[in-house]
């Protein structure tokens, strides 16, 4: 596999700082996003229903489990634990979230995002919601590259 030549100490440091920044931002976002949904899973269920993506039988179980998954993954990210598995999961989660928003926008649905609140205070989803979530995918993807393919960005392979 062709690799980028080894980077200078300065750029290695910048990449490491970016890694920790992305990790802390995404971890905090996930923890914050989980709280309201854990408190009111019924309201979160309504929001999941409004996306019209899951079959009826999956809505409540998703409303019960997904917020806890966000919380657990958020805590693991903040404390830098089990990073390979956590990073795989956040990439999957953010792709699913962004895909759901894009799909709802393309179908012209006028619904609450349910991203950070179940009360409707966030307002309807729009392109800003999509680009915000897309920026999370970019950060998650950077963490993925940093963890699994460090040589692609000229980093030495990570020891864990």
């Amino acid at each position: 596999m062709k690799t980028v030549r080894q980077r200078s100490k300065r750029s290695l440091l910048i990449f490491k700082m970016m890694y920790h920044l992305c990790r802390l931002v995404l971890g905090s976002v996930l923890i914050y996003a989980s709280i309201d949904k854990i408190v009111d899973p019924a309201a979160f269920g309504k929001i999941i229903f409004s996306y019209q993506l899951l079959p009826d039988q999956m809505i409540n179980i998703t409303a019960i489990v997904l917020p806890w998954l966000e919380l657990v993954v958020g805590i693991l990210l903040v404390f830098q634990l089990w990073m390979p598995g956590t990073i795989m999961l956040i990439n999957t989660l953010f792709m699913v979230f962004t895909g759901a928003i894009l799909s709802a926008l393309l179908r012209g649905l006028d619904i609450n995002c349910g991203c950070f609140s179940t009360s409707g205070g966030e307002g309807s989803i729009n392109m800003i919601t999509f680009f915000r979530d897309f920026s999370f995918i970019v950060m998650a993807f950077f963490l993925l590259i940093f963890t699994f393919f460090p040589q692609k960005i000229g980093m030495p392979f990570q020891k864990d």
Partner: protein
Amino acid sequence: MPQKLSKPLIKGLWQLVIIVISAAAIGIGYNYIRNKPLVLVEGWSNQNQLFDKTGKDISISINEAKYHFEKKTALFFDARDKESFDIGHIKEATNLPFQDIDNYFMELVGNIEPETLIITYCDGQTCNLSHELALFLADMGFVNIRVLVNGWTEWKKANLPIEPGPF
């Protein structure tokens, strides 16, 4: 697959499975000990959502809404954002964007009698802004709140009076 990559990948997959199972166990366990646990499998429909906190059905049909519009016995509140409202809305409806309810509430709703019939609407079969707005108004003491499901689309389909442009 290079050996350097396969090791963290396999490790990551194992961790992923354990994290998902743990989160599911915590979530289901916590739901079980809650005061009002959510049923794990439940039927969902639009009508399921259209009940107030006392279990009363608050949906209104397009014909009933039309009747109240013609008799001028109801106020129509559009729960969508200002941009959507400005493009078009039910004639004489008031824009009360649910996401900005705190900014608009006193100015637009403050002088309305609690017994007034209020019909909220938004757009799309599963749009829940109108339902959220209806529940909010009910919490504020209004006793006669109804929701016109998929209101904007239904209203246009029925060829009832609309107004383009800002309110």
